[in-house]
């Protein structure tokens, strides 16, 4: 069974998934960050493939992507660094990146490489549901890669149901109409939307993302879904003083305790 499904079977509350950009803050810190996150209680990790033009991202992830690229990160390099990651790391791992990089690498090559390494899923924000369904669903299934799709406050019910059908792991509920790291906290309309989605009793679990930066927003998000995804706030924490391990420990502690 895919590790993502195992996770949601064993746990359905307060799941914490952490996003960071591969190759940031330093060229060779990617594997170390993954190990530290697991050691400090992350349930799942989303490893960002840096892209020159990240349309859905705010300044923090833009800047980390630019720096990672300048430091030589590439999809090829990332995959080679991850080759033996499964000797140590047991939690589900996903890659998150824009479609152009994957398309250029070759979607089939990408799926094969992920299967070989033991990457469990992918989030490709600019790959539309329809294109996935018509062109890539079979390929992803063949290699056991779980695609994760986004829903937003503007996604209508029919489309949410379609997303539910195509989702094999979890649904990524974007908390408000925004790019990443732009808003912090939730307003009334976000909470109403969380309730509306919770009321739909979807057959796949939901994680909340965007706007989660601390313990209170994490707990609030977890109230209406299986847990939450933290990205920009974690990347900011990586810039703080101290050893990498101290920074990650500090961040995870304030989030969970």
């Amino acid at each position: 069974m895919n590790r993502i499904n195992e996770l949601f079977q064993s746990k359905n509350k307060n799941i914490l998934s952490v996003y960071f950009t591969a190759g940031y803050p330093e060229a060779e810190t990617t594997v170390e960050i993954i190990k530290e996150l697991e050691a400090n209680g992350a349930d799942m990790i989303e490893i960002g493939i840096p892209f020159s033009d990240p349309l859905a991202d705010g300044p923090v992830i833009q800047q980390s992507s630019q720096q990672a690229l300048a430091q030589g990160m590439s999809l090829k390099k990332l995959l080679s660094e991850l080759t033996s990651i499964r000797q140590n790391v047991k939690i589900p791992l996903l890659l998150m990146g824009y479609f152009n990089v994957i398309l250029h690498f070759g979607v089939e090559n990408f799926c094969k490489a992920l299967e070989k390494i033991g990457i469990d899923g992918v989030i490709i924000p600019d790959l539309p549901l329809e294109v996935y369904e018509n062109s890539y669903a079979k390929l992803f299934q063949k290699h056991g890669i779980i695609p994760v799709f986004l829903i937003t406050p503007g996604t209508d019910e029919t489309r949410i149901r379609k997303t539910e059908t195509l989702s094999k792991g979890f649904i990524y509920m974007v908390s408000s109409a925004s790019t990443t790291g732009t808003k912090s906290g939730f307003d009334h309309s976000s909470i109403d939307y969380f309730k509306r989605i919770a009321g739909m009793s979807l057959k796949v679990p939901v994680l909340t993302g965007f706007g989660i930066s601390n313990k209170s927003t994490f707990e609030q998000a977890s109230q209406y879904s299986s847990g939450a995804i933290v990205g920009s706030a974690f990347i900011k924490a990586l810039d703080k003083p101290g050893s990498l391990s101290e920074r990650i420990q500090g961040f995870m502690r304030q989030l969970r305790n």
Partner: protein
Amino acid sequence: MDYQVNNNGYYGKFGGAFVPEMLYPNVKHLEANYLKIMQSASFKNEFTELLKHYVGRPSPLYFSNRLSERYQLNVYLKREDLNHTGSHKINNTIGQILMARHLGKKRIIAETGAGQHGVATATVCAREGLECIVFMGATDVARQQPNVEKMEMLGATVIPVQSGNKTLKDATNEAIRDWINHPDETHYIIGSVVGPHPYPDMVARFQSVISAEMKTQLREQTGSPLPDTIIACVGGGSNAAGAFYHYLNEPKVRLIAVEADGKGLETGQTAATIAAGSVGIIHGSMTLLMQTNDGQIIEPYSLSAGLDYPGIGPLHAHLYDAKRVEFLRATDNEALEAAFELTRFEGIIPALESAHALAALKKGTFKPNETVVINLSGRGDKDMEAYRNFMKSQKDKNLLLHKPISNPNAEVYTRGFSFPNNSQPLDLSPMGGLFVP
């Protein structure tokens, strides 16, 4: 051969709408409504009236005696430079501001490179009384200052974009991000035939007025609506799409698109997407674009801010793939030379973008005396700094460096257009002196 977009939003292999879910409702809503709105009688009437009385259309089709003689061709210029705000961009912004009104949107955003599209958007927003925010790369803000001032006078907020190379690509990214953050109240007026479906098709339709007028004007002036060749410059490709639109299914008409080659393909300092690009996704569209082996989008280079874009509209990728349109490249210098040639021969200062199309006259091969229409997409006011620098750098040289192809009078022209500190007397008027009736 069908060159129209299909029901799924593709031109052959190119196009589509590769947008994050946050933009899906907006893009879908536009897609579901744009044709219905554009084809309604009230929209059509208002669009046509505004093009006529506000923009000043039809734009003239002008026979250039001097270029015709020099190149042994019949050269016509489609004078989009004479439009209100100085380029073809206003054809699209007039259409899109009416579209925004029909969609009930109150806040307008746009990206701009040269500033022409930004000015054209700020203009229609002023007229419509709508809030206008224009994203412009910080590099372009510096090199197109007069247009920044115009936008501000028109009441628009110009936001200098600091990400990436700080040019058109980055301005477009930032506009898209703004749209993600303000989806309900905002309409994004894209400035070219780029972006997710239905933008390329919608913008091409608004710009198609160029070729519709060309047909009528050519019939009046030459007896046939069909020229032998049409030439246009391509950044994203909107003026070319407009100039080609009604001729796509006329296989006898040769269509030539000219890309900006910056310092030359071999230097890597280029914006010639067809020559240097490969298939990929940029700004929500599957098309040809300049990218690294890792699929990272490359920062293009062209002296011309309006052509400094690493992608090309999906329609053009398809027209290239289907071998319907020939693509040429012109370097910065070739464009500058062509700009001076037009200026000194016809008294028309073209936009640096349009000068790339003019440069095709010396780069392409033509049959003697064929009829060539060049789409003069804009005027050169905004490019005076580049032109001044070129004049300075050419101080001791003849400004008309290139040789015409087969003009026996070449020597006369060359001498006639030499620079003041040359020994030859200066004669800049088209007819060799004041014309007194």
